[in-house]
């Protein structure tokens, strides 16, 4: 039985992840999700389905939300990748994270990193969304535990509070230096 799908062997790839330049030696067939989790030890993004159907792997690439499970790592060279690990800074949580805790916007928590990243990205594009806009923007993030009502509440609350708090925490430029 011939197996041509294995493809070429590992090659070096330069990735900018959470503001840091990282070089990984990987097969070109690797997804961004598998590289984040297995090569870079960033296990916050989860493998829920591997087919872009659940959103547990949500990351931000060049400012846009993306499913890391459907993104090839080689396609990310020269682009800025942000994961859940960059959303908080040391003890300093992002307003979205604080709101998730305050409003119990989770249950088992497995989808939560993806939900938080999707919410952060939404608020970067639309700092004061309506409830309908939150529901629409986050419809690609499945929560099987059904924490949706509290997630909506948390995102709207974070949006209300967001302007009063440090707006830079979610920006792409703060990756190093401040958190010590």
């Amino acid at each position, binding site marked *: *039985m011939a*197996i041509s*799908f294995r493809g070429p062997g590992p090659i070096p790839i330069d990735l900018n992840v959470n503001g840091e330049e990282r070089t990984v030696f990987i*097969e070109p*067939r*690797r997804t961004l999700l598998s590289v984040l*989790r*297995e090569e870079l*030890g*960033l*296990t*916050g*993004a*989860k*493998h*829920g*389905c*591997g*087919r872009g*159907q*659940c959103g*547990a792997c949500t990351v931000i690439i060049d400012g846009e939300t993306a499913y890391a499970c459907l993104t090839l790592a080689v396609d990310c060279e020269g682009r800025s990748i942000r*994961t*859940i*690990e960059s*959303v*908080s800074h040391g003890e300093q*949580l992002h307003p979205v*994270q604080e709101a*998730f*805790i*305050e409003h*119990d916007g*989770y*249950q*088992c*928590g*497995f*989808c*939560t*990193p993806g939900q*938080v990243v999707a919410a952060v990205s939404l608020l970067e594009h639309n700092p004061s969304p309506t409830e309908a806009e*939150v*529901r*629409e923007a*986050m*419809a*690609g*993030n*499945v*929560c*099987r*535990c*059904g*924490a*949706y*009502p*509290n*997630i*909506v509440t948390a995102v709207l609350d974070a949006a209300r509070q967001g302007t009063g708090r440090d707006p830079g925490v979610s920006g792409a430029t703060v990756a190093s230096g401040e958190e010590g």
Partner: protein
Amino acid sequence: MPTIRKTQVEFEGRIEEREVIVEEEHIESWGHDVEMRWVGKPTPRVDGIARVTGKAVYTHDIQLPGMLIGRFLRSPFPHARITRIDSSAAEALPGVSLVWHKGKQPAVRSLDGRAIFVDEVNYEGAEVAFVAARDERVAEDALALIEVDYEPLPFASDFHTATAADAPSVVLGEDNWIDREGDLYERGSVEAGLTDADVVVELEFTTPVAAHCCLETHGSAVAWEGDLVTVWHSTQSIFGTRSSVAEALEIPMDRVRVISDYIGGGFGSKWGAEAFTLMAALAARETGRPVKVVLNREEEHLVAGYRPGTYQRVRLGAKQDGTLTLIEQEADVTTGAFGGGGHVVGGPAKDLYLCPNVRTRVRAARANTDGARAFRAPGYVEGTVALEGAMDALAHKLRMDPLALRLANYAEKSPSRGQSYSYKGLRRAYEMGAERFGWSDRTASAQSDEGPWRRGVGMASQIWGGGGGPPANAIVKLLPDGTAEVAVGVQDIGTGTKTVLTQVAAEELGLPLSAVRCVVGDTLPAPFGPGSGGSVTLASSTPAVRSACREALRQLIELAAIMLGLEEAPAGDFTVEEGEIVYGPDPEKRIPFNQVTAKMGNYMIVAKGARGPNPEDRAVNTFGAHYVQVAVNVETGQVRVERLVAAHDIGRVVNPLTAESQVFGGVVMALGYGTTEERVIDPDTGLQLTPNLEEYKVPVMVDIPEIEVVFVDVPDVEANSVGSKGLGEPPIIPAAAAIANAVFDAVGVRVTDLPITPKRLLAALRQAATESKEGTR
């Protein structure tokens, strides 16, 4: 001194008489008017930061040096015989550590006693071969290199095919019936019920096969150190996993440690060790390297269980005033090739209403699918759809308010057991829910239709266990700086267990929440705790924590008395207030908690506590009622659930914040069950058409109605020392039935096949139109 006592425990619709070791003095329940500092207050989760930052470690996230990844080759047929298997090319692939299949496999049997790899595969996804390799890519490549010849065999995918006269054998040499006579319950007689009835309704229902869809798929990671084995397992039962691993590997229990710190959903499907756990353990022992096996999404649908579909017939008889004379309910289910899962479909019919004549029967047959598993209120969700749908039809026929019909048949005592309830707040739940919903004004809202949209309202109610019971234990350590560690052998599957245990410990010890650290999800530090099923975790384990904390305080007070020079004073003269131990007769004599512990040096107070027995001759149950408003589009068939009010009686609510989340979760899951979720098997191939999260439609954020939650919140002081009962399952039970009843109210046609998809709704409307045309001819 420990003694052995008998106690009644209800677990998922079955009453067990257990002999348990009781070792604590009776602890009076916290009463109705006790001023509480932590219990009863909305409390954000103690592990919230780990959850929102991605730092929480799930089984999927375990990565150990040198770890191998295991994958299974699975049957592509619903039923076949394997005639040849050749793994030589796979074994030769660089990076592959081992390949196992029926030709070469370790001497271990799966937990149901069958060998893991056999000649005959009986369902799509059955294990054919196992590979452990350097990483997932190599493992997948190796699977593609294994050559297997199959001889396909005839199969049966559903109950009617499997039980037909000329049915093919689901498992060669085995009867397709698992239980042909059926699990039967009878009180009074059907004949008497019919004779006494002024009105009879009879309906048939079908309910779908529903998939748990845990977002963290099932998996285990295993590492050996000498003869000690550590198993990270995404499980609802760490102790159940430990005993099943020890048993399967034939090693002593004390060599097995099971860790399940964070669990990405279970809903009944994640219990003890599974084939992948054993393969990981054996491959790790064989290779000397840690091994992780995680199912992919498709495997999760194929081999990780489901709620069985049902075919049901319900017959109700009643007097003109609504008094029930008969409840008869029959259900047929298929539970997979080798059976499994809970299907106590007749549970609600036995106990929800006062009725002298009740008969329920549940028959089970095999089919060529994997085994069913308990799924959040197993049997009760299915049974309630039919029972509460029939009650709605009866109310309609009698021209009675559906709520009034239920109140007319209210059971003050447990109808099946004849025992009084420790507390039953269903009447209050009916009232509170109706008031919040505006049930008495419902006609007005139902009239306001727009274009093709018709509005309707409906309700349904619920009974479930959730009283928990022994055994459950806790250990509390008081540390020199005045903080406390609490270890409990339960696991937090997302319900907030860790948080409520912390609240109860802080309450009893008189410490701030921040001074109590609770450890769950690890068999090493903790004494036994129950699996998280049957809504028992809170009601079983929080009283054990209270008991352990009281024992710790007793020891602490002894030391404090010495330090205050009051060695002779009776222990009962001391109280703990605001972190200080106070001598009642002379409150000037007091000493802060942490001053006592500081003087202990490195001495540590270690106290154990146990869950006491359940009250004698009492039924301990949970209750609820849901009220729903829907809008139905008669042109497209779309059902939009607009608003749902959920009223629940679970005794004392320990944490209103996480309790509300539980109700949201149950309602959302029931919304999927009632309107979108359905496993579909192609009758021609016997293969699943819906093994993913696109074709199997779980609710997403745009589907969610306005959900309002009200709790009766009266402590059940007879049930246990905390006065609280479980909530994991109750809220999924009545919602789908209430939605179906609201759809009837909206369009005047009862859809009795769930989920109520546009296709089914339009078909029902068309059929009703045809029948009424024929009727006028």
